[in-house]
């Protein structure tokens, strides 16, 4: 982490994203923000409130409800030297932009043999647990992590949020920046002042331990750390790794931890089948088979088409801290 300042400010994730975007707009005239309701409304979570007044409608662009155009135009801007930060209002709405992200942005460098790059950031709030039901709860990372040429980050601590968003803005290639909306105001933490970056592709150990490795990201990292603290009080030492970056994935940190603990639990909100956990599991079995002392377990969202609105349905979908603690106990006892 390249720190510009040792002074910090306590802020939540909304403030962390807002501060980072503001500083980026201030620092580089090529930077601009475009998306639905990012201007006059100041973003539905008020992340860009006041930006249009300060930076003007040429740099804070309110777009129509047309995600393919938002990303498509941003791809062109990025290829021609601007630094667009496109926003998809909710990750649930990203599907029309799939072709622009996967077919265009991710392939620009390869297709042009390096003549063009696509320094584009696509920010989008994702995840459930906020009574958002079908259109405001989805996790999309597994749909995109199959795609070479695309970086995906999903930080959930304010300091990580700022460092990785700065890294994403600085990155010469497209980055899908996922913000778990439930953590927006739920999570607070100290954030270093000034510009700094956290390398994309580097995981972070949020709770150290040696009996069991838990890999997670997003909202669930916070719950997993909470569960790990409970287990610590019971005498079971759990290591919680916050992936932070989904692709590229920090294999080194995961493998070092699994080789130490010999047990791996992967927790994510996205559904299990073909999810991020499947890739981690396959990678660990390929690389560390003879270090495993227990089957790799995955605690994930159910294979249902969407998160229900009804409280019991949402609660069943979202994994409680109790369930995480139970799964940790169970695997530790194996």
């Amino acid at each position, binding site marked *: 982490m390249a720190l510009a300042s040792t002074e910090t400010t306590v802020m939540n994730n909304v403030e962390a994203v807002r501060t980072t975007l503001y500083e980026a707009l201030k620092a580089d005239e090529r930077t601009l923000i475009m998306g639905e309701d990012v201007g006059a409304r100041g973003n539905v979570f008020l992340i860009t409130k006041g930006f249009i007044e300060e930076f003007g409608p040429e740099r804070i662009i309110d777009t129509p409800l047309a995600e393919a155009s938002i990303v498509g135009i941003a791809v062109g801007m990025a290829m021609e030297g601007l630094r667009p930060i496109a926003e998809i209002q909710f990750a649930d709405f990203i599907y029309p932009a799939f072709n622009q992200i996967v077919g265009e942005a991710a392939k620009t460098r390869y297709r042009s043999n390096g003549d063009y790059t696509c320094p584009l950031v696509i920010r989008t709030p994702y995840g459930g647990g906020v009574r958002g039901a079908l259109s405001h709860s989805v996790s999309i990372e597994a749909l995109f992590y199959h795609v070479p040429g695309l970086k995906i980050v999903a930080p959930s601590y304010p300091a990580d949020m700022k460092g990785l968003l700065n890294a994403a803005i600085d990155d010469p290639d497209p980055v899908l920046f996922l913000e778990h909306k439930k953590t927006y105001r739920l999570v607070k933490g100290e954030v270093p002042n000034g510009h700094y970056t956290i390398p994309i592709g580097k995981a972070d150990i949020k709770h150290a331990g040696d009996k069991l490795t838990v890999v997670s990201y997003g909202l669930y990292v916070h719950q997993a750390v909470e569960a790990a603290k409970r287990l610590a009080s019971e005498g079971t030492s759990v290591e919680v790794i916050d992936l932070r970056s989904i692709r590229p994935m920090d294999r080194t940190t995961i493998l070092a931890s699994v080789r130490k603990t010999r047990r791996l639990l992967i927790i994510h909100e996205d559904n299990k089948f073909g999810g991020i956990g499947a890739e981690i599991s396959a990678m660990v079995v390929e690389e560390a088979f*003879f270090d495993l002392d227990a089957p790799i377990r995955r605690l994930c969202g159910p294979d249902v088409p969407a998160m229900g609105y009804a409280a019991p349905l949402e609660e069943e979908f979202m994994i409680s801290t109790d369930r995480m603690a139970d799964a940790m106990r169970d695997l530790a006892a194996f």
Partner: protein
Amino acid sequence: MATTITMPQLGETVTEGTVAQWLKKPGDSIEKYESFVEVSTDKVNAEVPSPVSGILREIICKEGETVATGAPIAIIDEVGAATPPPEPVAPSSYGAPGTSVAHAEPARRNGSAASPVPNGKSLNSSETLRRVSPAVRRLAREHDIDISAVDGTGQNGRVTANDVLAAVSAGSSAATAATIVHGPVTTTSVTTTPATAGTAGTAAKPAAAGAISADAPRSTYAAPLPGTLVPLSPARKIIAQRMVESLATAPHAWTMVEVDVTNLWAWRAKAKDRFAQDKGYALTLLPFFIHAVVAALKKQPLLNSRYTPEGIFVEKNYNIGIAIGMESNLVVPVIRDADSLSISGIAVAAGKLIEKARTGKLGADDLGGGTFTVNNTGANGSVLSKPIINGGQAAIVTMEAVVKRAVVLNDAIAIRSMMNVCLSLDHRVIDGTASNAFLGDLKKRLEAMGPSGEL
């Protein structure tokens, strides 16, 4: 099929429950999902639905009794006993709390005194031993630990990696008498210094603690020697597998004859230029040899057969495989129905196959269905070889290099062009009589070939 009903966990922090009231008595029939017992905890009172349909056979836990969650409280005989036993309940750790079900053999549930398999050590030990994790297997091998002698602390008494390391520390292994010191472990965990012999993982100092004598003499050459690992190509893997299979299943016997090919050699020398001009393929010794082999096989059909558990299958066709070695590969394309071909026909067929092999154009049709194999080992100068039978055949014959040697001919020493012919045979199929008859016949035919013959 008896289903043991256990005390459900009525809440995520609840560890025990009290049977408040039985809603059914032994002998009553119960529908699936029908409430049959009322359970109370310090948090809730709840009626518990039955997970199965059946007859309540036995009440294990009486009203007012408090037992731990997971302890058996009743046995229900499932209806339709003729139906196959249900699938074992998947050990999902993630399900919502609810009624837990454990299936067990009726015999083990005799009376309320019978307790279920506790979390303890009573799982069938052979089962436990078979279910050894990769880490345990590796650690046990590295530390020379007899896993069956280790106390397991995992689920159902499973031996965990830490149990093995504990055994190493305690020096309690039953199999350490030999004090075998292994070389440095190259797969050692990244958290360990890979220098200590026999240690691995994160255990603090297992080697010093006794199971393996730390001061036992060690070879100066214990360190891995430098070298290059050539990855196995798919072809190499298949070759390796087939060679091992053949040698492991067919008892190989070996025999050899010397053949005087002076006249044959002269014939070939005389005909080869013309042949190459006419047909476009080189005339080597191979087609002459194959032609003679096929004729000899017809006299000894057992050589053209294969062993099956039902009997020796004598082939009707004479499909002769020719082993062609390439830089890192070996292929055996087949000349089909070689008995229908003249020497010249065989030469052309072989020439085509060799060309295809060299250009990597052999198809499945070129490679399958061989009944006997000829290996031209002499092409590379070998004078003696012991070939491995091509799997699914009874024998393989080689033609070694033709060398001029001083031999006794009509009680005089003469310089003759000599060739050794070696035969490996599946001794399950063929004995010395047949193989010697075959080789003798082949020798006679080759020696009879000369410049007056017809291609």
